[in-house]
């Protein structure tokens, strides 16, 4: 692959912000999966039934308590998780930052290349599972769980457009904008 024309090459080290952004993007990807949605909906139904334990017909205080439990469940399942993910990602980054290696990402006409001190891969487009793009990052997936990523801060606007254009053209439906 490296004999084909190199379109972009960039080297970057993952920062705390990158790590947090990646975790948010992963959350968005998970949010698109029916499994996560189903899990959240089932949890919410359980919370709803648990709240019925406190329900006494005609008693205002019990109705308020039930509403409070249901609202809290909704808040923690569907709103608060974003905050938790950010906090957790920052904590993991602090623990792992000494093990993170700088990465070199290259885009070729027929695929992408990713290199670190311990890993190197020249992946043709047809071997990629999906590529996701959001405001901060491109996520290159080789399976539903294996992800490599390129922060947009590591490339300029023109390179970003080239990367997006090539990936869109080559991957078609497997290029997903989050």
């Amino acid at each position, binding site marked *: 692959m490296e004999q084909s024309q190199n379109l972009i090459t960039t080297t970057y080290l993952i920062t705390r912000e990158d790590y947090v952004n990646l975790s948010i993007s992963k959350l968005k990807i998970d949010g698109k999966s029916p499994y996560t949605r189903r899990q959240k909906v089932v949890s919410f139904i*359980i919370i709803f*039934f*648990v709240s*019925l*334990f406190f329900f006494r017909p005609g008693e205002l205080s019990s109705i308020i308590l039930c509403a409070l439990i249901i609202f809290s469940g909704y808040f923690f399942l569907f709103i608060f998780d974003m905050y938790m993910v950010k906090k957790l990602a920052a904590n993991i980054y602090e623990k792992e930052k000494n*093990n993170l290696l700088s990465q070199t990402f290259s885009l070729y006409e027929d695929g992408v290349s990713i*290199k670190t*001190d*311990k*890993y*190197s*891969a*020249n*992946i*043709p487009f*047809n*071997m990629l*599972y999906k590529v996701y793009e959001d405001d901060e990052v491109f996520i290159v997936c*080789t*399976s*539903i*769980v*294996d992800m490599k990523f390129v922060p947009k801060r590591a490339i300029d606007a023109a390179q970003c457009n080239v990367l997006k254009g090539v990936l869109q053209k080559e991957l078609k439906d497997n290029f997903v904008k989050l």
Partner: protein
Amino acid sequence: MDLKEKKPIIVLNSKWKKESYKNVMYTCEKKSGVLKRRMIGISFYSVIFAGFLFLLYFRILGRYEVSLSSNWHFVCGILFSLISLYYYVMFLPKLIKKQAEKVFDSNKILQLPFKVSFFEDRFLYENEIERLVRYWTDILFCIETDEIFVIKDTGNIVFILEKSDLSKKEIEDTANFLRDKLVNRYTKRSNL
């Protein structure tokens, strides 16, 4: 990445198999993932279940009404704990194996044949697309079973060597080499 400055001690060729991958992922989850906490969940909901059953029994034994409408809290509690127990005992293991199957099917690179070269201080995994080096100090554990060798590293990456792809001598050499390198991180058992 200068990986070929020395001659490897052992070179093996193998291929990932879906069944082994599923079983290995399940074992890894049992050792350090979500299934590790399964027993806590099972114990917790068993206690909740027993508690609600106990309360319902004494309510019925006492002079309270023996109708469902007056005891529905307890019935709901029993149902909830039963559903949770079903989740931990039956659903979660199946879910993990199903997820592993999905990962395997979605990863085309994993389905390529690969070569593993063992060096004194590290090993090199390579296929048509990827090259990956891991030092022996990066390895969390290695399990040898009747069918496979499993090597798991600290970064959650798992390597599986199918014994059916290796000769008798290769199996023996690999077992001795890994035992020598990993010492107490190496385990031999008949199955996962």
